[in-house]
């Protein structure tokens, strides 16, 4: 079979695909921020929490890391309405991804928390830092450098994981790629272009994370 590549048929759709890439980036960014907050709280609860909070967080983490993200969002989108809660496509995807990310980030940040020398934490406690002040001023700056590779990996995985949002009606990059493919039938061209866009998006996301790390925590981080 001699297949002639015809990118000319697909170029006109580039703005549509780029807009989809932006939406993927947006969903991943929002879910990551939410996940970071949940993760910090969860890690703090697991490291310093009392006897009641720890099992609760543990159940949350085990459930969300041991089930597929697709199944989690499917439940939020298609099963909750039977219980009376109707979430829109975007909200269901965002909520599902945030909860999923929160569980993974709890584990990642707990590892970071426990890598800080106990002496430093105790020194801060002696100086009168509250628990939250200890986390913000002593623990996080120390672990920012150590945590950067796993955090950026998680961010990339999440950005690529937004591709399942198309199943729920969110027109992000993969969904739009399927639509363009359904109209032009140029699978090879459409999906090579989509792959290239995903690479650009993940590069941009990692660069953003590195800049944030450099500014907020004064940690020098490499992007590639």
């Amino acid at each position: 079979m001699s297949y002639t590549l015809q990118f000319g048929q697909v170029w006109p759709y580039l703005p549509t695909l780029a807009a989809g890439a932006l939406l993927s980036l947006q969903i991943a960014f929002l879910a990551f921020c939410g996940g970071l907050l949940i993760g910090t709280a969860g890690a703090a609860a697991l490291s310093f929490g009392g006897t009641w909070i720890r099992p609760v967080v543990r159940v949350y983490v085990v459930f969300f890391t041991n089930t597929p993200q697709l199944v989690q969002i499917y439940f939020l989108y298609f099963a909750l309405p039977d219980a009376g809660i109707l979430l829109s496509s975007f909200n269901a995807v965002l909520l599902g991804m945030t909860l999923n990310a929160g569980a993974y980030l709890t584990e990642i940040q707990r590892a970071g928390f426990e890598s800080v020398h106990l002496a430093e934490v105790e020194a801060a406690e002696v100086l009168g830092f509250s628990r939250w002040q200890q986390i913000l001023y002593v623990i996080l700056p120390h672990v920012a450098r150590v945590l950067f590779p796993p955090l950026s990996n998680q961010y990339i995985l999440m950005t690529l994981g937004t591709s399942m949002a198309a199943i729920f009606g969110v027109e992000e990059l993969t969904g739009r790629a399927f639509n363009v493919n359904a109209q032009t039938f140029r699978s090879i061209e459409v999906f090579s272009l989509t792959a290239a866009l995903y690479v650009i998006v993940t590069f941009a996301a990692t660069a953003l994370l590195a800049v944030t790390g450099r500014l907020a925590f004064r940690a020098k981080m490499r992007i590639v």
Partner: protein
Amino acid sequence: MLRSLMRRMTVAAMLIVGLSAGVVEARTLDEIIRSGAIRVGVNPTLPPLGKFDEKNEITGFDAEYAAELAKMLGVKLEIVQVGSPDRIPFVQTGKIDFVMGAMTRTPERAKVIDFTMPVHTEVMGVLTIEGKPYKHWKDLDNEGVTLVQVRGTTPIKFIEDNLKKAKVTQLDNYPDAVRALAQGRGDALVDIIDFVGEHMNKHQVKWKVVETPVDVYYCGLGIAKNATGLRDWLNVAIFELHKKGKTAEIWKKWFGIDMLYPTGVGPGF
């Protein structure tokens, strides 16, 4: 360190080239007969064209019709499950020899695959919930309307051309789309009503089909563009089945009623 990196990259490049060298071509009629089996794509989420029976095998109008064709050709039938978004790529790459599943004949699709003469017709209508005020499909052309559709199906193009103001939510398959409509995520579904009938029965919702149908479409079998001989043979076989009344018989068995619009095929296709 650099040398081992270069060596690893060379191995990776060779693997990529080696794995991609197996480009699949669509099979010719002779190859199919020689291999003894014909691969047919059937979509099992379109009852009664295709569905899973108790043994979890694919059955329905499409499966039975394909079995008739395979019997005529003297080969075994292999059914491959396909969905709306992937059935055309499957045909193009030779994963299946022809595809069924209400393959509507459109000029855009004819650019990349070939069609046989029509096997059956389909009537596109509007499915909505009782209580909605739509009397004619043109009523859907306003911004307050959200349509729930299936990705990669023909109504999408129709909606882009004729219902420009309506908002569209695209889901992956018919069961999901009908469920979303039942849950109130949209106002209507524009598609072939016969095929969503069984999905509708799964939900406790009062359905309403808008009286005026949208259009009649012709569905044939989809084949790859360079499948020499297969299309010509299929056309002759399909005409035979129409003439003997077998097509109408299989349709009546699975749909319960006669085909709403006759295909009108003549001997000089």
